[in-house]
């Protein structure tokens, strides 16, 4: 359901943590990999959307955020 706008930054942070926990996302700490990070995060968002049968957009749309916020098991959905 709709997300209040100013929460978007918060949501991005939440999503990053979610993808690190469950989709083995590792953010490059080095800042000049920024654009690479964004692509890498979009890939991981696509992986999560595909797992849950959501529309695969690579973007943090409301359905994707909703799914990330549902209570769940702490084990990753994919294994490295």
């Amino acid at each position, binding site marked *: 359901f709709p997300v209040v706008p100013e929460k978007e930054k918060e949501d991005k942070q939440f999503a990053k943590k979610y993808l690190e926990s469950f989709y083995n996302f590792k953010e490059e700490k080095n800042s000049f990999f920024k654009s690479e990070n964004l692509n890498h995060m979009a890939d991981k968002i696509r992986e999560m959307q595909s797992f849950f049968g959501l529309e695969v957009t690579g973007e943090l749309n*409301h*359905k994707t955020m909703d799914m990330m*916020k549902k*209570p*769940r098991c702490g084990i990753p959905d994919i294994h490295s």
Partner: protein
Amino acid sequence: YSTFPQSPRWKKEDVTYRILNYTPDMLQADVEEAIAKAFHLWSSVTPLTFTRLYSGQADIMISFAAGFHGDFYSFDGPGGTLAHAYHPSSGIGGDAHFDEDENWTKFTNNGFNLFLVAAHELGHSLGLGHSNVYGALMYPIYMARDTRDFRLSQDDIDGIQALYGPPRESPALPTKSFSPQEPTEKTPAKAPTETSPQEEPTETTPSKTPIRPQDCDPHLTFDAITTLRGETLFFKGSYVWRKSPYFSDIEHDTISSFWPSLTAGFDAAYEVDKKDQVLFFKDHQYWAVSGYSIEPGFPKPIQNLGFPPSVRKIDAAVHDQNTKKTYFFVGNKYWSFNENTQSMERGYPRKIASDFQGIDHTVDAALQKNGLFYFFHGSSQYEVDIKNKKLIRTMKSNSWFNC
């Protein structure tokens, strides 16, 4: 289904477990029963047996803890991660940890059902990973479900039997009643968990799920319609059409994808925007939800709202955001409910036709949008300006779907 890399599994069939501590949310006996029932789920489809130890090292050590609890995966407070478990191996392998910051219960509302979560985590303790099959026990997202006759999905069974094979002798009849694996020491046999009056209704699983009608089917009718945080949801059977100002297309969902424990086939629905609350009506009961969560203490009987016992169900409901009154439609009459005083207004019921211009039949669903009211009857809808008591126009019920 999935397994962990290299598919680790127990190299023996008699696996041991030990409950290290308890959650204060539940009676110890209920915790033990939930755990035993969860093990029984897996032993009934594999050759595995589970024996409870009361001291020393067991293969599967079960504990409740909050926040940091000695492994690399701290818990995160209420909500979010509920529990985790380790795949079969020595040491921490097989162990299952439950987040004490959650509210654990033996029911399926007012918290997380320990049996359902334990059954999932023990799947990991036996070597299963997550499944992306919606409705499978190993699906990563918690879904409150009726636990009285809970069954593993075929995907779960396929996964665990890929690791351990089928049970030695197939039970003559599927074991319906639950009889926990005999632990090493006798514990008094427990009566099956009685269900609480608030126990969520079992999901009605129609023998044949009717297919979703086309958006622009000219004969399309609806059971109920409501707004929700600026969006509009149209309900029919188990299906939801979702119209949102935030995206252009009509989204197709099911009731269970938003509220897994609510049964399909609402009679009515309406939003009290000021309370960020939507109420759903089915037969003589109603539920209140806020977003995805069902508010505690529901369902309630509709008589709580002030209906006489003769009213066994309602046809439609709509909340007037301007007057803070909610109109309930039953047959050719309607009631007015004051949301501020939470009581039915005096002088009701009244005939629908005498106050709603042009509405001289029953109402299937009702909606208020941009100050106007829309009354749905069969495949038609009537746009009414009730302030000026004027019927503005008649349209097809699905005119909202950009047909």
